[in-house]
């Protein structure tokens, strides 16, 4: 197993060397030679971009749709600390203070997915209520950080769709921020059209794929 892997990596590297196309005197440079493994540095890369804005990302994948059961729900509490800015924004007093969270959201920590119109990134009226519920739940669970994942349907251009997914997720982040949720608790991650929720090539599938999903991080 180990041997075959080494051979495999050697072939890969040899191929990469061939591809590099450094062709000085003659074709002898194209000879496949053994070498070290093709490596990807795991940590501590020195790069031009590394600075205060560099995000340190843990190696393991984030838990998907993790349930949060240990947090006590205190009715009426709208959060505290740095994120308790909801009161300072009377224009966005749309979080219904008296209303109970939906049973599902309270028990399972579900956060509602938000959907978008084609090539659009504004929050639809239909989704305002769900986002308000999400904000309320996040307000009650101050220890929770979430990633907002922005997605696009398969139409359009891949690169553009990745930017569109970013813009959708950023829209949701801003909306929640206006509802008093600290931006520090909201990561944004765009997948563009790479991770469709529904497989299909019609509006039924596309409408399910133009979305922003919440993934709970510890």
């Amino acid at each position, binding site marked *: 197993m180990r041997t075959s892997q080494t051979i495999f990596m050697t072939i*890969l*590297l040899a*191929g*990469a*060397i*061939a*591809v*590099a*196309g*450094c*062709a*000085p*005197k*003659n*074709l*002898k440079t*194209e*000879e*496949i030679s053994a*070498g*070290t*493994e*093709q*490596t*990807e*540095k795991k940590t501590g*890369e020195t*790069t*031009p*971009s*590394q*600075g205060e*804005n*560099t*995000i340190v*990302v843990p190696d393991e*994948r*984030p838990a998907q749709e993790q349930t949060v059961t240990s947090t006590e729900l205190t009715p009426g509490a709208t959060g505290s600390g740095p994120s308790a800015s909801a009161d300072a924004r009377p224009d966005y007093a749309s979080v219904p203070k008296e209303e109970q969270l939906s049973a599902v959201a309270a028990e399972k920590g579900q956060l509602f997915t938000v959907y978008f119109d084609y*090539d659009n990134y504004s929050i639809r009226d239909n989704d305002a209520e769900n986002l308000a519920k999400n904000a309320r739940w996040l307000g009650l669970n101050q220890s929770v950080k979430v990633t907002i994942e922005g997605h696009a349907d398969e*139409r*359009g*251009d*891949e*690169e*553009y769709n*990745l*930017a*569109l997914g*970013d*813009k959708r997720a*950023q829209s949701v982040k801003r909306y929640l921020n206006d509802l008093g949720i600290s931006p520090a608790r909201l990561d*944004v*991650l*765009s*997948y563009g059209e*790479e991770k469709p929720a529904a497989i299909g*090539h019609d509006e039924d599938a596309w409408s399910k794929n133009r979305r922003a999903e919440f993934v709970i991080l510890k």
Partner: protein
Amino acid sequence: MIFGKHLLTAALALVLAIAHCLPALAEPKIYIDLSAPAARKIPLAIQGFGYIGKDGANEPVVKEIAKEIVDALRSDLLFSNLFGIIDEKAHPSTLQEPHDTVADFEKWRQAGADGLIKGGFSVEGGRLTIEIRYFDCLSEKQVTGRRFTGSVANARRVVHYFSDMLHEELTGERGIFTTRIMFVSPKSGNKEVYIADYDGKNAIQITRNGSTNLFPQWAPDGKSVIYVSYKKRFPFLYRLDLATGKDTVISSRPGVNIGARFSPDGTKIALTLSGPKSPELNLLDLKTGGYTRLTDNYAIDISPAWSADGSALAFVSDSAGNPNIFMLNFSDNKPKRLTYTGAFNASPAWSPDSGRIAFARQDNGRFNIWVMDPDGSDAAQLTFEGNNKNPSWSPDGRHLIFSSESRGQSSLYIMRPDGTGLTRLSTGIGNETAPVWSPLPLPLQR
């Protein structure tokens, strides 16, 4: 018709004869004028390659190599669109013909050949030596001849170098037969980056991280590539050195680090980063690591394409409502709109001489490849079937490669910039997207 053909042949013979009689006046020797419209194709014969080594003529690999050499020559020369290849059945008996000279030009002319390629090869200790010669049957002269030594594992590659030289000898312009195509495929279960020869052969996988890898681009020297990967969860930009295999992250800002393209001099990268308002175009200075924001608006700005002189970027923006192509000139930094029609305009690519911009335009749910002048005028649709995206120019500007999707499967196609010569590129990998043509590799020293 026949008379006309003979007249042309005679005219060409005369030109070639003059070229040979007056070598001093004939430089640079241009046998074929690439700028001439609808130039006549040279009828060419390729004589089978025989084994010319001392030993090893009966090795099983010999037969295979002989076939591979002729196959590669055929596909290179047909791709050049300069030659018509004469069926081997029409060749004169080559029993008396050596591999390095022509015994009887008259016989080859009778077979219809104006040009003749012949040669031989030998294998010694894993090294393949090929001798190839091109003869002009009209002037009865050898035009070019080279001996190549390379790996026995890739006879095709050795032939590509000859094709490059022959192309340059005949046209004054270097061929692109040693260039490569980079693309993305989900074949391994996730999207990884692959590189194949220009003819689709010898495809190898160059990323292998199990994550999603997108939008590869060549460095101007062809020695490294940049690509977007999710291997550290977020869409960061990485650079992979193809010679050493060294892989480094070069842009890891919060949000997206996408749409990256090298400046022609290789010192900067234009890319899209998440901005406070919207994804914006930025310049990353590779020396300092500093960023300069180029756009500042509430629109999506993406897919920058450099002009050859590095003075301007064509890019996509939805600032006018739907995605359109804009031009940003570094002299005034004011984006100027180029497209006014089409529901979705995407992925501009500037031709190597900066004369035309290729892009993808969608009107009725499907994209097609278009070209236009850099001021937005003279737009022409080149494809009419399938869902065609991501055009990329060959370094000589004589071909475009793009991806075409049909029933959920994508494949790569090559055509000339007038839409003719449409050919599917078979890489053996499957479901290929986001093709990018490499720059010319360094030439072999003569």
